[in-house]
């Protein structure tokens, strides 16, 4: 944790995004994915905001995350799809969490535990979770035998976003899976395949339910379209106060390794955020921040607890608020710019923020 550094999450932006996305996809169910602490936004507070906005369901990776939502008072249906070996699903039954199961062992365990319903997860090309095509008939047949006690509510897969053609192959494979499930006697009410990118651009991929992750937080899943162009508002702002200001003569080094040596006399401002707070060290000497609405570049190496900004000859003072990233519509640097500076993706910028940073939901 760092003095007065703060992650501010605008829950009204989360609600706005959820409503905007629902309107964009028409008459299908909307699931918002709140795994990884709601992509760094704070799982419970974000989930409650999405609940207020009328989303139908929430998705998480694992049961620990699902149980944490329940303990926080979240009542929406919750789906979890990444399970430990030997998972008993007793917690899922106890907390009314719907598991997505990928194999017979998980299906049997879910039935034994008495969960209310399951989704079946099939691999249509991503090669991660999900039963592969050769396993479908056995999985579907057993699910059909069990369905009196364990209803199969949904059938799901996940797109690789490799190319429109590859996504088309996956959609075709998913249609085969749905057909095989029906032949086996299953009637899954919710077929779902698409996440943010697929749901927004491929109407045909929306099926019965779409899963929104990044877009729900007001961040664009596309390289060529901004959040604002999608009608979304970034909800998260990362700020910290300037803790030190000093004048540095031309040619002197700054921070570890002296990567930055100013060519002329300049003023540097120290900001108490570093890689331990989740700021990617790879953004060193490249990323930009704003102070008082003006952009300044991070200079030198980002350290564990501090980074240095070159403010030139501007009158920046100790205590001034530094916005690392937030909503470009309010003049902030975008999380996508930090991702580009670090050679990564926007998802990482928010999801890797340290759990020790204080989060304020407003």
């Amino acid at each position: 944790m760092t003095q007065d550094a703060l992650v501010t999450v605008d829950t009204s932006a989360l609600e706005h995004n959820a409503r905007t996305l629902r309107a964009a996809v028409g008459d299908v169910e909307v699931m918002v994915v709140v795994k990884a602490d709601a992509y760094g936004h704070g799982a419970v507070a974000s989930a409650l905001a999405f609940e207020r906005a009328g989303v139908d369901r929430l998705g998480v990776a694992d049961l620990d995350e699902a149980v944490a939502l329940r303990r926080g008072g979240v009542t929406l249906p919750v789906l979890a799809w990444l399970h430990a070996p030997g998972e008993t699903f007793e917690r899922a039954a106890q907390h009314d969490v719907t598991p997505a199961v990928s194999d017979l062992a998980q299906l049997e365990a879910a039935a034994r535990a008495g969960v209310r319903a399951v989704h079946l997860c099939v691999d249509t090309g991503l090669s991660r979770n999900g039963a592969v095509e050769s396993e479908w008939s056995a999985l579907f047949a057993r699910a059909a035998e069990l369905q009196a006690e364990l209803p199969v509510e949904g059938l799901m897969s996940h797109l690789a976003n490799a190319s429109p053609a590859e996504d088309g192959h996956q959609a075709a494979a998913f249609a085969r899976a749905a057909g095989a499930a029906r032949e086996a006697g299953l009637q899954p009410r919710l077929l779902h395949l698409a996440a943010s990118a697929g749901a927004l651009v491929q109407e045909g991929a929306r099926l019965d339910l779409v899963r929104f992750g990044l877009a729900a937080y007001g961040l664009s899943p596309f390289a060529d379209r901004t959040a604002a162009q999608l009608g979304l508002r970034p909800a998260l702002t990362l700020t910290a106060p300037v803790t030190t200001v000093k004048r540095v003569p031309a040619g002197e080094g700054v921070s570890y390794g002296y990567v930055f040596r100013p060519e002329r006399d300049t003023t540097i401002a120290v900001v108490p955020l570093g890689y331990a707070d989740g700021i990617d060290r790879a953004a060193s000497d490249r990323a930009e921040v704003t102070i008082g609405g003006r952009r300044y570049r991070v200079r030198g190496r980002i350290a564990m607890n501090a980074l240095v900004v070159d403010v030139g000859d501007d009158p920046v003072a100790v205590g001034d608020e530094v916005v690392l990233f937030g909503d470009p519509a309010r003049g902030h640097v975008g999380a996508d710019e930090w991702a580009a500076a670090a050679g990564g993706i926007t998802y990482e910028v928010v999801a890797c923020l340290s759990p020790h940073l204080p989060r304020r939901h407003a």
Partner: protein
Amino acid sequence: MTPAPLRLATVDLAAYRANLTSLVERMAPAQVLAIVKSEAYSHGLEVMVPEAVAAGVRWFGTVELEPALRLRRAGLGDEASMLAWQLGPDEDYAGAVEHRVDLGVSTLDQLEAFAGAARASGGVALLQLDLDTGLHREGCLPGDWPALVRRAVELRDEGVVRLRGVFSHVSETSPDDDRDALDQFTAAVARAEALGATFELRHLSSSSAGMEHAERRFDLVRMGSNGYGIPVTEGVTAADRGLRPILTLSASVVRTKRVAPGTGVSYDYTWRAEHETTLALVPVGYADGVSRRAQHGVEVTIRGRRHPIVGRVAMDQFLVDVGDEPVEVGDEVLLFGPGDRGELTIGEWADRTGTIPEEVACRIGPRVPRRYVGGVA
């Protein structure tokens, strides 16, 4: 079958103590200050501090004040001194006085605020002066130094501050730059003494400088990464230093699948199987601290054998190509550790993902439970 953990970070407290004990012995007569910033490099502040005390450490550097106050309020490390020097604009100086935390002060404003808090409570401010010898972060610039020292001496004479120490940080840029920092430090201490200051402790060196240059140890060496068994000097391994990495990151295989030649894996299909092969799904991703740069040559260890990560690391998971090996669901996957079981060390992991081991340790995420072994405190 008992559920295997999805993900696990194991902290070897016996190795932590052994590292620190060895450092305490090697640095003597200089004292060792253990750096426990950032929740003890994310190992867990409240667990690590009592272990370090058991290993003979009597100084802790929390960098920021808040964790030092948290330790004091919990009664942890009570027999030790604590030092913080990265101070915010609205710092809790009264808390520092009340809980006997040394503050490294860089400016007159900070000095007055600290002394004012002591005066108000009738206590004593444990003061250290922080000099900038080139790093240009915290620290008093040489031009401002005489004024800071004069005021500190006045406040000492007034009885509201105890002048405990003087210190600086070196940038570890080059031998020349670091020698320059040493000269500046020595000169600034001499200047301060000429102005009437006397210091109980002088310190300049952190882990590597403390190991390599006996003449830079002065009275105390600030040991960060070495304590955790991750020496930062390029080309130097923990074993070279007689140290042992204390952190192991592991996970369980949650799925295996046989795939045909040409099968693409994970987002964007950045990797395709050349031959028929088996893929193992490992449930840790970048939200857990596994960098997206961990592909192309980064290997994990399963059943004592190395296997490459293939395709993109996702938020919660990645895939490993295990070839025709008999890997099963539930098998333990070692990402990095001390290296005893064929796994990469944290230093090797950092090298292959384009960063430093401290960043690897600090970015292990909140979904990864910590398991502590070998504790005595």
